């Protein structure tokens, strides 16, 4: 039946695209905002939980346990569970989206900081660094490559997940995919999918450039 519906239809109807540039731009912006909030809030929570895990090592296992369980809940199921509580709202979408970033971000932050050469930490402490100063000025900068790697995975994952949030009416580009499926209109599906992928690639590229700019010493080493 679906195939029959799709038959005779071009994959992309460019006239539709031309007519809906404003809608596509608005959806892209919404997608970006949803992703940005998710990553921002996710990062804040992850930093807080990572600091807890680093300071009190015993908390690390329960933290990864809980965020791990969050990570394994299918997104569709999570949104369905939340709708009766928080409604068809941005909050519902963000609870899910933030939840999925936590495991990736916390693991990378903790692994990045754990990975700092003990000799460097000992030298810093031996010269009179306080714990806080050590963390901010030495450990975090040196963990940046690993932390940014985590942010890259989390951002790509989140951009993909935002499309699922279209089911509760807050899906950015996912709106086109959902509507295209409902109406058997491939143009919308393709626009939603391609734009979503393009967004993921663009954000990833930006993060690579950011890492490049933030960690000049990594490159300097490679030239020797």
């Amino acid at each position, binding site marked *: 039946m679906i195939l029959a519906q799709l038959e005779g239809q071009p994959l992309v109807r460019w006239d539709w695209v031309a007519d809906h540039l404003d809608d596509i731009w608005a959806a892209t912006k919404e997608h970006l905002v949803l992703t940005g909030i998710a990553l921002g809030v996710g990062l804040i929570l992850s930093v807080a939980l990572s600091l807890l895990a680093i300071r009190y090592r015993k908390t690390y296992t329960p933290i990864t346990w809980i965020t791990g369980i969050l990570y394994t809940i299918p997104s569709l199921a999570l949104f369905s569970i939340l709708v009766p509580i928080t409604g068809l709202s941005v909050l519902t979408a963000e609870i899910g989206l933030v939840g999925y970033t936590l495991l990736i971000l916390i693991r990378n932050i903790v692994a990045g900081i754990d990975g700092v050469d003990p000799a460097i930490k000992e030298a810093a402490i031996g010269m009179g660094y306080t714990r806080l100063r050590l963390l901010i000025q030495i450990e975090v900068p*040196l963990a940046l490559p690993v932390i940014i790697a985590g942010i890259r995975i989390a951002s790509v994952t989140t951009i993909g997940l935002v499309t699922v949030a279209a089911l509760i009416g807050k899906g950015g580009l996912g709106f086109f995919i959902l509507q295209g499926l409902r109406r058997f209109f491939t143009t919308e599906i393709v626009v939603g999918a391609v734009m979503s992928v393009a967004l993921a690639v663009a954000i990833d590229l930006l993060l690579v450039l950011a890492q490049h700019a933030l960690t000049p010493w990594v490159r300097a080493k490679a030239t020797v």
Partner: protein
Amino acid sequence: MTEIPINDAMIRLEHVSKTFPGSGTPAVGDLSLEVPEGEILVLVGPSGCGKTTTLKMINRIIEPSSGVIWVAGVNAIETQPHELRRQIGYVIQQTGLFPHRTIAQNIGTVPRLLGWDRPRIAARVEELIDLVGLDADMANRYPGELSGGQQQRVGVARALAADPPVLLMDEPFGAVDPIVRMRLQAELLDLQARVRKTIVFVTHDIDEAIQLGDRVAILNVGGVLEQIGSPEDILREPANDFVAEFLGTDRGLKRLSLIKIHTVDLDPGPVVVPGTSPQEARSVAARYDVDWVGVGTPGTLAGWLYLTEVEHLGQVPEHDLRPFISRLTTSATLKEALDAIVSTRAKVAAVFDGDRYLGMLTAERISAEITQ
């Protein structure tokens, strides 16, 4: 912080011990020692002797289980650890340089912690880069771009940055190749002659200890102090079998490596002027119990030849002599002199100051120096 006018020791350990949690035996038992101002004290011993633990208790990287430690007249145990550490330079084997900071930023670490203003830090960094013999254009490079030896120099410069009275060095030259290590050791002594810090230096290498230490403390497993004293004293009179064994079977040679030629009296040697008759040459050689004579005028030494050759020629010639292959200067050690002696057929070491001949050393003369 309490000031104590006990004595002028810069570092003082009083009955210090450390037992790590979960360990039945102490890593350091009941250790007391003093390091006077301006001295290099080397802690040396086999692994497990607690030398590194001892060092790290001084800046409280490791907290002592009991005892008191005084640093520059201040009770280290009662001082805020980070305040204490900013007064103590710290150099470790793996350098611990901050890879994300430039050489200049690395060296400026402690001054920045102490809140110096930028121009003062910049001036100090420039001074230190020069002091440890690095190129000024390295200032803006990252540590990863430098060789191991250069990194270790940066480590020393960083430790000296805030001009601390005390320097702690934990096997600082352990990870570099032997040639670079020898150079760094020589540089450290040069540097120390200029900055006069109180240095505690940890090594497992007895030769390094002997070369660098004003005094050497030999520790045994469990932080037991077996002997402390000048390298000469320890080599001459090891306190017990453990020390003797640790010093090795070439103790005599090690002692020779401590004695510079300019501290011993040189012998003029069996030297005659050109034109001397075979009879006279023979009587000069007989006085030294050798079968050759050196040839030269006072203050010069051109070479040597066998008495049989003098007899064959009829007199001592001016040219066509056998050369003294190793020409030693007075800053060489008796160990180098001995090497020259066993490497030449004349069995002597000729000592020169530039072109000027000063005298000779024989194996007997050198042996007398350490058996007297």
